[in-house]
């Protein structure tokens, strides 16, 4: 307890638990891998040169960056308004929308990819619909194209964009926007100059997570893409599968990390430093463009502002709604995005009731046999229980450690913060196969290969990164004077954290915990390496199954997973969402 208090006084110390886990499980082996990639002790760049000398590698590298940038941009364009509308909705609607956004994320990546094949295929749902209505005479080539890659990738990444945005937007004081409006700012200006800058931390977290993840994609582009749609991770995985040359694999992985580092520095590594960066960005973009036109509109704006201010006061006391058109458009947008997000899950659920031996849509016969094949087979239920145990442990461990680290990073000086952030993000930047190899060596030293603890630690290094990014975004908008006020009232650092800071950053912490759980629940590549053929998780079991045959049991499993958040929603509904008296000693319990 005392050491903890001491740590509390020295903020950077809070990052120690996170960095210790990282260092032991992942850090030391990755340093060794780096040394291997430069042929230590001879020290040469031959592996890097060999990589760059192949024109194909360079071209795939650019293609990887291009695909990732476009996918990230689409996520931004859809995700930002979506997050805004979710935040603006009433509490109950918001709750439902958030759960619905998360549902597709719980459907295993593999199953979702199959759902897209069923939807976009030549004899898939969309083509069948268009053919039967006579709009087209021969099937459109929807699948096996770059467009299909984007559809699949954005579908997977959209929740990762939306959740950090929502967690930050919920912390924005809406009266600030109202104040701007009352001073005569038109709605767009109030958004652009007040709301947007305040939401930037969430935006940056979202962009960062999405981009970094897109860099490492390989299952989706390989399954949905056309003849040319190779990603660097596909190349690396193929290399590992065919020849497994450690030095070359490590070199390509470090090149990928390099790109992520460049991207981080462009976006601003400082996830916590918002105020200065945000306004700077907003002002810069304000100034760019056509200066004379801008000046003119600004002058016109200034002229009209007293009138608008007057109208605002009038409007403020009007009962009910603003313009109905915007509400309708907003609702329509939300519905469309939800259709996109949930349709594959619906397809999966329907396919799970198929009586045939294959995944097919629509099913020719209906039956529950794939559900009984799941529940009747202890290897399935055992694997599911194992995954739940591991997922919960990972969520708890990484949420605690990650929140502490984010808090510590937030309080330290910028340069150190940037450096530590890059280190913490490394496990989600590297291709899974490389992280898995590194973790294998790390766990070997601890004698943890083939144990649950080993798998929990392996999953946690990635999950911590999620938590840090999301919690940092929430902390960025956090008014530190509230803590000072608490301290001035003689609250200790721990008490301040528990009673003031934690309740305020709760949305971020919860979002982080959720991602940590899902990250663990869907992980297959690293797990297969460190499981030592002894621990079987649900994704491993599904993967084993899907490689050998596509039997609808996996659709049944996926449907059951979709049921989980719905049940949670139901439980919350039944318990009435009443805020209960806050439990004492939440944090100390968890840490000790």
């Amino acid at each position, binding site marked *: 307890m005392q050491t903890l208090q001491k740590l509390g006084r020295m903020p950077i110390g809070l990052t120690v638990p996170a960095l210790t886990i990282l260092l032991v499980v992942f850090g030391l082996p990755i340093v060794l891998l780096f040394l291997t990639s430069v042929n230590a002790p001879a020290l040469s760049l031959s592996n890097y040169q060999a990589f760059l000398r192949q024109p*194909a590698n360079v071209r795939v590298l650019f293609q990887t960056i291009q695909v990732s940038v476009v996918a990230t941009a689409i996520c931004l364009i859809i995700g930002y308004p979506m997050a805004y509308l979710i935040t603006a909705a009433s509490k109950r609607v918001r709750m439902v929308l958030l759960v619905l956004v998360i549902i597709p994320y719980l459907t295993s990546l593999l199953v979702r990819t199959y759902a897209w094949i069923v939807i976009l295929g*030549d004899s898939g749902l969309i083509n069948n619909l268009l053919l039967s209505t006579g709009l087209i005479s021969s099937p459109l080539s929807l699948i096996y194209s770059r467009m299909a890659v984007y559809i699949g990738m954005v579908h997977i990444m959209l929740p990762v964009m939306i959740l950090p945005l929502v967690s930050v937007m919920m912390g924005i004081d809406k009266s600030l926007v109202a104040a701007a409006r009352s001073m005569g700012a038109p709605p767009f200006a109030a958004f652009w100059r007040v709301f947007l800058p305040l939401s930037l931390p969430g935006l940056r977290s979202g962009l960062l997570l999405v981009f970094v993840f897109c860099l490492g994609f390989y299952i989706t582009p*390989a399954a949905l893409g056309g003849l040319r749609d190779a990603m660097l991770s596909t190349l690396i995985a193929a*290399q590992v599968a065919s020849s497994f040359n450690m030095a070359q694999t490590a070199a390509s992985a470090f090149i990928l990390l390099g790109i992520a580092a460049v991207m981080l520095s462009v976006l601003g590594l400082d996830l916590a430093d918002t105020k200065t960066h945000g306004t700077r960005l907003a002002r810069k973009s304000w100034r760019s463009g056509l200066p004379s036109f801008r000046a003119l509109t600004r002058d016109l704006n200034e002229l009209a502002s007293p009138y608008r201010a007057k109208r605002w006061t009038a409007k403020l006391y009007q009962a009910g709604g603003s313009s109905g058109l915007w509400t309708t458009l907003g609702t329509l947008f939300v519905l469309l995005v939800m259709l996109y997000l949930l349709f594959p899950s619906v397809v999966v659920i329907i396919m799970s009731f198929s009586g045939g031996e294959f995944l097919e849509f629509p099913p020719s016969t209906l039956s529950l046999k794939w559900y009984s094949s799941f529940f009747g087979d202890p290897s399935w239920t055992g694997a599911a229980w194992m995954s739940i145990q591991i997922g919960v442990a990972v969520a*708890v461990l990484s949420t605690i450690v990650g929140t502490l680290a984010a808090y510590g990073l937030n309080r330290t000086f910028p340069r150190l913060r940037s450096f530590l952030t890059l280190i913490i993000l490394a496990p989600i930047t590297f291709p899974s196969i490389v992280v898995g190899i590194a973790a294998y060596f790390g766990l070997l030293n601890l004698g943890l290969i083939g144990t649950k603890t080993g798998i929990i630690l392996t999953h946690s290094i990635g999950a911590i990164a999620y938590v840090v990014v999301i919690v940092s975004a929430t902390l960025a908008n956090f008014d530190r004077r509230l803590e000072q006020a608490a301290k001035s009232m003689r609250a200790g650092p721990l008490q301040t954290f528990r009673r003031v800071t934690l309740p305020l950053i709760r949305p971020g912490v919860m979002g982080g*915990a959720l991602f940590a759980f899902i990250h663990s629940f869907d992980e297959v590549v690293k797990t297969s*390496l460190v499981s030592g053929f002894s621990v079987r998780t649900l994704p491993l079991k599904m993967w084993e199954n899907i490689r*050998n045959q596509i039997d609808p049991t996996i659709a049944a499993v996926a449907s059951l997973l979709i049921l989980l958040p719905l049940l949670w929603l139901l439980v919350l509904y039944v318990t009435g969402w009443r805020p209960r008296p806050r439990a004492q000693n939440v944090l100390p319990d968890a840490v000790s």
Partner: protein
Amino acid sequence: MMSSSINRRRLVQASSSVLMLGTLNSITGRSWAASNELRVSVGGGEWGKANIEAYVKPFQAETGIKVNPITDDSTIAQLELMVTTKNVTLDVINLGAPSVAIAGPRGQLEQIDYSIYKKDELDGILDFAKEPFAVGSLMYANVMVYNTEKFPAGKPRPTTWAEFWDVKRFPGVRVLPTGQRGVEGPWEEALMADGVPLNAVYPMDIDRIFKSLDKIKPHTRKWWGVGSEIQQIMHDKTADLVNAFDGRASQLINQGAPLEINRNQAKLRWDYWAIPKGSPNAANAQKFIEFATRADRQAVFAQLMNYGPTNRNAFKLIPEKVARKLASHPDYMAISLPWNAKWYSEIGAGGLTNGEQLRQRWNEWVLL
């Protein structure tokens, strides 16, 4: 979601601290190291089940040696990690021929003890399935499969790779396997399409391969990577003519799909049983592999799962109807081309193996 978080959080914490304690115990729970049960990787799904029925259960009954069938995939990366770190957690591993060609020379596999095999069994096993470090477990093939709605029985059908390449005579969408792993790809087919006779394919002319592939590329819809993918493509009728695994096509045909297999100029491939170097139960692992390559055992396996035996004597015990579905049927063997591991691992120009050269060349070519 956020409002009730504290309650939930506390609940999660309380329940998970119990879980965390539970996991600490599992550190000491590494049972395989102590016991002498045999850990055999058998693969997943129907394949794993067939392996257990045909080999694992009867082996336990005959020898009394306890076998733990592991249904996870086993890869060359896992083998390398296990062996180089001396933490071998499998006694018998299932590997594709390309992996054995790499792992054997690297010293990651135990030498097979052929002295424990009966003479007639040993004579029955095909020559290329008797490697110093591995014994063939099953055979399959890359075959031409066409859609019978597009190519009905009365009309001309493509029967050679040259005809598969002939898009004027046989118009339609093609799908071929990817070459991104180098050691597997549509290489042999490309050469046969270009007029190289079956027995002169090896050593392969890499330039000629890609010249031939240039011609088929504009008519190809997708390069497939794993078996379940090509199965889905055939199921969805995305293509009219494909190069697929025979087992995947058979499965669909058994279900009534409008497909037919052409076995002429098929490329024969096979998997191996092998023992990772340093296996704690190597002696029993040798016994298991000897048991699993006997003719009577392979005959049982072939009837559970339509993969061909590597032991020719098994065909004496397999009904003709089933035998006709197997890639290693003597009639098909005569018109098929066995994959040549030796050529792929030979060092060619630039100090790279032929397989590695193909991989790099493919990665470049596929983006053009």
